[in-house]
């Protein structure tokens, strides 16, 4: 492909770059034990939660930011970030009470709550900055014993569940960003599906960053008790900002005996402009544990945004016969950098995991897959199949694959396949000759390439993901 065309195609600007004018309640910048106490106090948290935060904060002080990822990260001054921002008004009781500005923002993102409520049957727990402002369908779910609420509400109303499960999958000692999140997390979502209940609707949360220099420290905890099922969607997009914004979330999933959890993400944080200025730094720790026998967790992610992505949704396969899947499409364009993948830790017998990673690199971006498959000594007959494909658009970007395998049981079967391909001039010309423009041809080919992953997404997300893939790569090939 000629440089001129690549250059031309890599020019599209972020379409969701706008900010909403809502008063926010921001703590002065900087991080100290005092700030942790203020956050906890502002949220009226019980003593045990403050203790947890303080322990995490003190541990964080002993840690250094990890440098092993294939990322070039500008120095982050953690003292120049404000660690708490919440819309000033009290949480509304109905849609009528929701700040009209906020509703408008969601409209522009294509997430009209009203329509979603009426048409799609999705319960939306919309997180604006750090505090939940809207939870719908809660009553319907409550009738089945399902708890779906903000993390803060869970701390207040279900302290036993939170104390029992929080940080059991991702302890605050896990890593630098997990410790930071545990110290200062603002809010997030909590889901509990009781024994034998099949959650009748997709649960979803939309995240959004909206205050200058405000770190986003979301925390999600999903517990699926014996014989239950839940599908959870997470999607996000952020307004355009010059300053880099830090996002360090934690997601924990616990699947008990025979439980099945499906977690889907479409991530579209602001990636920075085409010269690499601005953009979100996304350092996420996502991990699930298949705790009970025959349990199942699947992660599906479509990652198109962020200036820097550091993210490895992982699974610990503890229960016998448990299984896990990781399906990922990660797109990088312009100056974006992504180091993403998964860890599959096999502990139980007859456990199986499947990894399908599709990287797409354009512009001068760097896209790395990093994955670990570990088979424990007691994991008889464990099985893993990994496939990592890379698609390159142009010749200035990079695709890298770092697969790690640790097999400690000789009955295990671990397979890894990897391919690297380019969209060829011949493919583009073939499409052109059938009347399809280069831009549409790239969209068609990229969506074809990503299809196996996108097909894993719930319907309404799949459509959004396809659009995103095309928008993200608009103008990036010839």
């Amino acid at each position, binding site marked *: 492909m000629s440089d001129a065309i690549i250059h031309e195609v890599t020019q599209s600007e972020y379409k969701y770059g706008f900010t909403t004018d809502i008063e926010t309640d921001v703590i002065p910048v900087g991080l100290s034990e005092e700030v942790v106490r203020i956050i906890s106090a502002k949220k009226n948290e019980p003593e045990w939660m403050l203790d947890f935060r303080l322990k995490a904060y003190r541990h964080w002080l002993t840690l250094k930011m990890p440098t092993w990822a294939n990322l070039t990260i500008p120095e982050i001054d953690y003292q120049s970030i404000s660690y708490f921002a919440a819309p000033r008004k009290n949480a509304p009781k109905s849609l009528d009470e929701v700040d009209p500005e906020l509703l408008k923002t969601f409209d522009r993102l294509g997430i009209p709550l009203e329509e979603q409520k009426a048409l799609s049957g999705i319960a939306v727990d919309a997180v604006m900055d750090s505090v939940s402002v809207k939870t719908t369908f809660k009553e319907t779910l409550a009738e089945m014993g399902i708890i779906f609420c903000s993390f803060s509400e869970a701390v207040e109303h279900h302290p036993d569940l939170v104390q029992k499960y929080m940080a059991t999958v991702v302890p605050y000692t896990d890593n630098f960003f997990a410790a930071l999140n545990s110290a200062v997390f603002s809010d997030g979502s909590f889901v509990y599906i009781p024994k034998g209940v099949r959650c009748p609707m997709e649960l979803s949360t939309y995240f959004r960053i909206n205050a200058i220099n405000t770190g986003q420290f979301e925390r999600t905890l999903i517990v699926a008790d014996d014989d239950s099922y839940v599908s959870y969607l997470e999607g996000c997009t952020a307004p355009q900002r010059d300053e880099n914004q830090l996002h360090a979330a934690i997601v924990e999933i616990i699947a008990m005996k025979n439980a099945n959890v499906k977690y889907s993400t479409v991530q579209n944080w602001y990636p920075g402009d085409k010269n690499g200025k601005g953009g979100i730094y996304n350092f996420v720790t996502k991990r699930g544990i298949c705790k009970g026998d025959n349990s199942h967790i699947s992660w599906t992610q479509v990652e198109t945004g962020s200036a820097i992505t550091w993210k490895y949704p992982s699974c610990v396969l503890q229960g016998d016969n448990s299984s896990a899947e990781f399906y990922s499409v990660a797109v990088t364009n312009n100056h974006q950098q992504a180091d993403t993948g998964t860890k599959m830790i096999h502990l139980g017998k007859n456990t199986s995991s499947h990894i399908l990673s599709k990287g797409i690199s354009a512009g001068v971006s760097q896209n790395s897959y990093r994955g670990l498959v570990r088979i424990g000594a007691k994991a008889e007959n464990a099985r893993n199949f990994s496939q990592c494909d890379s698609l390159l658009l142009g010749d200035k970007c990079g695709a890298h694959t770092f697969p790690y395998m640790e097999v400690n049981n000789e009955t295990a079967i671990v397979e890894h396949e990897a391919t690297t391909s380019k969209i060829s001039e011949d493919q583009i010309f073939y*499409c*052109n*000759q059938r009347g399809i423009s280069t831009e549409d041809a790239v969209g*068609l080919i990229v969506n*074809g390439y990503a299809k196996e992953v996108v097909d894993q997404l719930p319907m309404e997300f799949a459509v959004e993901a396809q659009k995103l893939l095309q928008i993200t790569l608009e103008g990036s090939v010839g």
Partner: protein
Amino acid sequence: MLVIKDLHANIDGKEILKGLSLTVKPGEIHAIMGPNGSGKSTLSSVITGNPSFEVTHGSIDFNEKDLLELAPEERANEGIFLSFQYPVEIPGVSMVNFMRAAINEQRKYRNEPAVSATDFLRLMREKKELVEMDSKLTNRAVNEGFSGGEKKKNEIFQMAMLEPKLAILDETDSGLDIDALRIVANGVNKLKSPDNATILITHYQRLLDYITPDFVHVLYDGKIVKSGGKELALELESRGYDWIKQEVEA
């Protein structure tokens, strides 16, 4: 319909076409024959706008439009279709999605609304029958895992779907067994009308047993050096190209 005048074209700085002229009228079938390296495939690439080739001199008009001013997809939407000699595979893109995108681009170009799902599927079924194409193939990704013959058949299927004004078949007969050749030729014959035209680029006379050309041209060293009726093809078949070379060089 198609008027090519004194066309010169390069690839990687090497001149391949050296003053080619050709006129094709509606309803006509032209066969272009010639030895290897004479520029046959270059001609089809240049007409369809393949960016690897550079036109240095001459003109190509198509229905009074200057083709050289149009992008490849615009030429396609003007009604020019190329059956590729080596059709590429596009993994993951289903034939259905690919054809629907192509049809809708064409309709958009003509300011027509997008085709409805039912009309589209009906059209697919109709055209599949026309070229005796297995449904298994149209359910797969574009050309992925197709045999050589299946790929060629798929080209004719796409041609049937898009109903071009000018179809260029670049060595569509090469690599085909006799049954596939008959099916491909039948497809071409059935699609023939007084309003469209066909250029057959071929090495062998074999295809012309099934498709009768109105004109046969011999391309040699980047120029058309001899033109005639279908009997010229037979003569080439029996005498080879050497006598042409001698005539040209004499």
